[in-house]
């Protein structure tokens, strides 16, 4: 059974507690290596790092509100086929959900992985975060200041990533260690198995008194914001011309696909010659149509990607953050994603046991499709 505990014997505050927790997990050999954000080599920005020495977590930035890489991609790289060591991974809830989807897609092996889920206080776009930090702001302190009351707002003048602003799933689930910040007074509390808490020698505490209600009210606010944003999108993109008005600028750079944690295919259809054409075919098509939009097949790319991965979309927004044309990719995927997930009664990232909708079927279903 999971119990609440306070990380003891380390620096004050949530960041100190998290660094201490990671060092303790390494020292106690609960894990052999930890995946956690750290200042980038050279000191500019924060990047994910894999560290094995307890002293190397001293400068970890586990709460830096920025997601340069969707962590599930790294969990996949580090565990697919089985890792020869025990990994501990500090992840946001959307990264955990994507990791679970990747495990079901056989692209990650979570057996033996200690998932350390941290309440997500939202993230900024990477360039915005750099500007904030360069300007002397402390985005971590700002986020932590509001966490006990469940006030998760960006720094004045800044904005959270659009996907974060409409995220209801900021509390991690399905992890071995939960680091709770929202609705928790005086830094972080952890929730983990009784055995682990005992092994680390942490002081057991009562469940934080106001956490449930604080989470519920923030979730309600986010749900309303999500409804509003997705309804606004649906009214804007209601037919093919209006969809083209939103996506017509796509240059098919595939950045969204590369950044997407779910798009794992080593040989994506769009990286093969499947839809390539010989020069003579362009000429033929030109004579038929009079003009050709280039590069071609941009809408085909997005619609196909929806078909291939929207059932597993965890709404992390990595696609939009990667888009050089600032297309509303994550809004499209969130809006369509919730509809197709409802079609199959599927919640991505909820459980390893829950079969992927396209990997299974029932004999008695969907009879309306063939009528």
């Amino acid at each position, binding site marked *: 059974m999971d119990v609440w505990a306070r990380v003891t014997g380390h620096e004050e505050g949530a960041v100190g507690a998290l660094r201490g927790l990671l060092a303790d997990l390494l020292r106690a050999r609960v894990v052999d290596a930890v995946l956690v954000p750290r200042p980038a080599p050279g000191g500019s920005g924060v990047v994910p790092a894999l560290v094995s020495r307890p002293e190397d977590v001293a400068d970890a930035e586990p709460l830096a509100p920025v997601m340069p890489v969707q962590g599930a991609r790294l969990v996949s790289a580090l565990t697919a086929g089985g890792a020869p060591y025990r990994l501990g991974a500090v992840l946001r809830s959307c990264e955990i959900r994507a990791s679970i989807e990747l495990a079901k897609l056989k692209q990650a092996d979570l057996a033996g992985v200690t998932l350390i889920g941290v309440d997500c206080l939202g993230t900024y776009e990477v360039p915005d975060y750099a500007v904030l930090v360069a300007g002397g702001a402390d985005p971590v302190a700002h986020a932590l200041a509001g966490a006990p009351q469940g006030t998760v707002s960006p720094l004045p003048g800044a904005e959270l990533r659009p996907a974060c602003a409409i995220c209801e799933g900021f509390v991690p689930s399905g992890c071995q260690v939960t680091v709770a910040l929202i609705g928790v007074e005086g830094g972080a509390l952890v929730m983990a198995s009784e055995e682990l808490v005992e092994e680390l020698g942490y002081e057991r505490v009562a469940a934080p008194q106001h956490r449930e209600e604080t989470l519920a009210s923030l979730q309600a606010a986010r749900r309303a914001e999500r409804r509003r944003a997705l309804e606004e999108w*649906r009214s804007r*993109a*209601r*037919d*093919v*011309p*209006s*969809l*083209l008005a939103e996506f017509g600028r796509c240059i098919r750079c595939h950045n969204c696909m590369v950044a997407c944690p779910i798009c794992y295919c080593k040989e994506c*259809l769009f990286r093969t010659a*499947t*839809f390539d054409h010989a020069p003579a075919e362009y000429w033929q098509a030109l004579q038929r*149509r*009079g*003009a*050709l*939009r*280039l590069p*071609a*097949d*941009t*809408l*085909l790319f997005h*619609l*196909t990607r*929806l*078909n*291939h991965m*929207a*059932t597993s979309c965890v709404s992390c927004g990595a696609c939009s953050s990667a888009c050089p044309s600032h297309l509303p990719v994550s809004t*499209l995927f969130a*809006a*369509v994603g919730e*509809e*197709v997930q409802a*079609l*199959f009664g599927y919640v991505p990232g909820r459980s390893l046991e829950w079969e992927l*909708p*396209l990997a299974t*079927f*029932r*004999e008695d*279903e*969907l009879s309306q*499709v*063939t009528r």
Partner: protein
Amino acid sequence: MAEAFEPRIVAFLCNWCTYAGADLAGTSRLQYPPNVRIIRLMCSGALDPAYVLKALLEGADGVFIGGCHPGDCHYQNGNYKARRRVALLKKILEQTGFDPDRVWLRWISASEGRLFAQTMTEMVAAIRAKGPSPLRGQWGT
């Protein structure tokens, strides 16, 4: 005067059932409208929705997918998987402003030449009633 609208329908037919059904319709000299361009697949479950989308985005007025009746799949359960994919595709089309009713999935066996001809007649009439695809004449998407 503009030419009268003739629907262009791309049909993806499974090798073992619907394609054989289409073949039977032909050898039985059954009449059905010549608006259908047939592409043979080994299984309806092998159809990537990308090809359906490609046809629609290139201006096809309708896409027909034909597979074996439930329980008859040559590969055990490809048609059940096709049904999930087509249900998903239709939901995505609906959500992105396309007309999902321009895509039909039907089960037609190798012995059902008559049903094939009848279904093609029905689909051509239904698409004719809808009018041309809004993507027709589009210079790119």
